[in-house]
């Protein structure tokens, strides 16, 4: 099967501190890959390297078939990104944001018009298309941000904690959107804090102190760690002494 992302010994050091320590993994096309870890485990640094925001100290990574070090510009055209911080412009209207991102990715006007119409319909945002984004509820904003991130039909979409602070119902809807995208062949690379969301992923990796401590399907991980939920798996990996005491 064609690999969407393949990472080999990727390392990032800041001075003496090693944020990401020689990680290696592969992600299949159309897969939903969960990238988990406690705060400071190196998730964000890893995602920043894969999206070209940060240069690796050592190692190699191919994203959408291109080398992230030598073919950055080609990688950029093939990926979508939704950051942990809010990705849309609050002082622009819903439609203006859509048009802006379409423009930045160089989509023809006709395509932008079609896509924005479709997007507004699917998200049920038609009535508020001329409203400033800042007055929308957070859940709507996040769903819009996701739609915008995959507007240019990227091969891979990187989602850095996309559902932070969103209510459970909206989170559920958000994941439905992720599944829809994955069905069309988009690879989804997602980091999250919520362990219930980890269960929705095809495969997860759990980072501890810059290394990948475990990587498999949620089912297999639970089996291996004899855990009832992904939460237990996570706790055993992150705080081994505590979980054994339990």
């Amino acid at each position, binding site marked *: 099967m064609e690999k969407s992302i393949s990472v080999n010994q990727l390392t990032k050091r800041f001075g003496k501190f090693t944020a990401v320590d020689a990680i290696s993994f592969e992600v299949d096309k159309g897969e939903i890959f969960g990238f988990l870890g406690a705060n400071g485990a190196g998730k964000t640094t890893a995602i920043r390297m894969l999206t070209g925001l940060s240069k690796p100290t050592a190692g190699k990574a191919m994203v959408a078939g291109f080398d992230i070090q030598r073919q950055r510009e080609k990688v950029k055209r093939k990926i979508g990104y939704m950051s942990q*911080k809010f990705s*849309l412009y609050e002082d622009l209207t819903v439609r203006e944001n859509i048009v802006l991102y379409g423009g930045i990715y160089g989509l023809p006007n006709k395509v932008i018009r079609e896509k924005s119409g479709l997007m507004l319909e699917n998200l049920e945002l038609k009535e508020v298309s001329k409203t400033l984004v800042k007055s929308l509820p957070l859940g709507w904003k996040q769903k819009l941000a996701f739609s915008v991130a995959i507007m240019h039909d990227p091969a891979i979409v990187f989602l850095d904690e996309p559902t932070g602070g969103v209510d459970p119902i909206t989170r559920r809807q958000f994941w439905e959107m992720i599944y829809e995208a994955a069905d069309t062949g988009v690879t989804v690379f997602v980091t999250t804090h919520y362990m219930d969301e980890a269960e929705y992923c095809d495969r997860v990796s759990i980072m501890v102190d810059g290394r990948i401590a475990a990587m498999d399907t949620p089912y297999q991980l639970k089996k291996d760690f004899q855990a009832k939920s992904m939460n237990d798996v996570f706790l055993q990996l992150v705080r081994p002494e505590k979980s054994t005491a339990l």
Partner: protein
Amino acid sequence: MKRMRAFIQKEFYHIFRDRRSLLILLGMPVVLVTLFGFAITNEIQNADLVVLDPSKDEMSTEITRRLVASGYFDLYKEAQNIKEVEKSFIFSKTKLAIIYPDQQAKDFQKEGYAQIQLLADATEPNTATTLINYASSIIKDYQMEVNGLQGRPPLIQPEIRMLYNPQLKSVFMFVPGVMTVILMLVSAMMTSIAITREKELGTMEILLVSPLSPAIIVVGKVIPYIALAFFNTLVILLLGTYVFGMPIEGSLVLLLAECVLFVLTSLALGILISTRTNSQQVAMMISLIALMLPTVLLSGFIFPIESMPWPLQWLSNIIPAKWFIIIIKNIMLKGTGVDFVWKETLILVGMTFFFIAASVRNFKIRLE
């Protein structure tokens, strides 16, 4: 190109939707020029004058009359003794006192010589000096006339002409100064804030992940501010010429070209600042303290550079505003062409390239 257009359009949305900043950006030039032009002037009018004139002869009353008639002084009080003069300095706004001798006219006629004492309130040294100068010259004029009447040979009489600003209007000094400050503010401060805002909100990451190259992002962010700064330049020049009678002796095209050059220098500085910091607040503080203060204090806008101690004179050389003020004063007041300002122009061009190079270097370091 299409990408760039979408990006610039968004930048204009930001500017026009932030009503308060827009009002400041567009209103400030008007307010500052008007303030400096009308209210803040170096000319002093209607200063309170106290007179102690025991003899009240034709000579002393004539001098007093001329002082008051000049418009610079208002007769506040006729004091009876020196104590009263002192009191009026302390308890009122008296700026200048004139004390005549007991028998001035007699002395003058008998000995050809008389002494008048001028007392000024030097708590404000500049005002005191200016008032003393006004009063002295009025008294001198009078003396000349008296001498002439009596048929004495005239003494050496200097014939003074103030070139390029014959009425010594301070607005001629302030218009170039205010223009410099505004252009610096709009270009350097606003761009550094606009760029750091994207960093702070996290939208900068989204842009960097997109196919837009960093150079395009920076240029796209800066173009609207060039337009805005240029608009402000026009407003200030119009106000200066039509409201305050400021001349534009030289070529208007050259003047505008130099303004654009200075805008570019300031923008480069703003970009440099934004590569050094990630927060809007810090960007604003750096812009205010590291740019605005030297621009106001060391550029020769308010305080003449020639009278500064040499370390400050030396320091003023690295302030872009100093060179810009020299250039526009030359063009506007003296009507000189490129042949006289090419050196200053080259310095500004050099500074611009230096700032851009430094920003590019910084930007690369940050990306590590």
